[in-house]
């Protein structure tokens, strides 16, 4: 049985659910025609909150391929979304590694810094490659929305599904 919650099948159950959530989140990019919701950033938040560091080694590989799928959908340069997703997974793993997994405020602060870093990197990459200044206050809106979504997503994943955020 697929959703058997015994210890043996838990890995598959965790992997399956989190991959479905990431898949839906990325696919929603096709139908979002407003500048408020950036589903790529929301996927980054989900990956950051996922229990990736406690999953098997295949998890980063899945994330890598989801990144390629995302690039195919939104026509970004191949490798862009993978880098972004894996960076947030790395932040997740590092925050686990240094034992600050339980401190929500610290994790939120790490996410905030990561998003700002991504925003500056994107801005500089576009500026130097296309000589175009893309900065407008409106561009910060998806970033803020992603930050705001941290709390409901964290609550949902931690308390309702009890699958992704560890509380050992």
């Amino acid at each position: 049985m697929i959703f058997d919650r015994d210890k043996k099948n838990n890995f598959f159950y965790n992997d399956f659910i989190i991959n479905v959530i990431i898949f839906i989140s990325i696919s929603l990019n096709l139908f979002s025609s407003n500048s408020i919701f950036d589903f790529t950033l929301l996927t980054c938040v989900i990956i950051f909150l996922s229990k990736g560091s406690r999953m098997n080694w295949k998890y980063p590989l899945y994330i890598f391929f989801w990144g390629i799928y995302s690039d195919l959908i939104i026509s970004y340069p191949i490798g862009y979304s993978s880098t972004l997703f894996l960076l947030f997974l790395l932040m997740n793993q590092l925050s686990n590694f240094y034992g600050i997994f339980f401190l929500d405020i610290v994790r939120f602060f790490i996410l905030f810094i990561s998003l700002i870093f991504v925003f500056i990197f994107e801005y500089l990459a576009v500026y130097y490659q296309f000589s175009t200044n893309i900065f407008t206050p409106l561009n910060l809106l998806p970033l803020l929305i992603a930050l705001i979504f941290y709390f409901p997503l964290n609550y949902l994943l931690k308390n309702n599904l009890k699958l992704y955020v560890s509380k050992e």
Partner: protein
Amino acid sequence: MRTFKNQFFQSFLGSQLRKIIFTVLLISISSLLIFTQVEKTETIKSFRSSSIGIVYFISSIVTSPIKLIENSILRIDEIKNLYDDVQQYKKERILESESFQELVSLKLKIAEYEQLLNLNKDQEYNFITSRVLADLSDKYFSSMLINIGANNGVFENMPITGPSGLLGRVTEVDDNISRGMLVTDVSSRIPVSVSEKSFQGILIGQNKKNPRIEFIKESGQVRIGDLVTTSGKGGIFPPYIFVGQIAKKGEGYIEVELFEDVNSLTHVRLINFSNNISNDF
């Protein structure tokens, strides 16, 4: 007990470290893919084009409930807009008939002058109409998916227009689905002509609503409200397609307000322009 704890800690540390190293390795591979611009190679280009259909099919199944809700809201909005349009049409009907007469007489005049000057006639072109499947116009790389492809005669670099003006050009073609890059995309470069004096410039996407015109020598003579059309240079876009009008002039830049709003479009036209010979844009 201490030894057991140490062993446990070491194995945990080892496994965690291995995962982190593996993630870093994958990040390096992804970054390498970006910097080598692997999508520009012919194999990846063709893979990308041929995968649009499959990716769209899978995504549309997954997101169909959300799409259904979105469509219902859009329908209600469309009905309201239709009512407003009818009211507006009633008001402008008389004025429109006068404008139509004026246009016809102008067209006849131009034809007469062309005959007198013995001018070569511009190449005629037809178009294919297509439905917009998905609009990704708010990302850094603005694009849209349309429901026709190579089977319908679509080819790369076909200009895309709406009822009022230029939208962009086709960049990827699958059998039944194509992707078009919009003029607002940061990598979009279109040769344009400004005002009736035909000042030449390049329209550059800014990831904002209004793209900018650069490389225009006579920028001092450009006025707000001047008409911007395609110049036809480069061979991708036919000349005299409306793009927009000058909306703002600043220190070293000129902003163009586009005639077309991609968010409100459900259908687009793909112009079958056979002078389409260059890939340099």
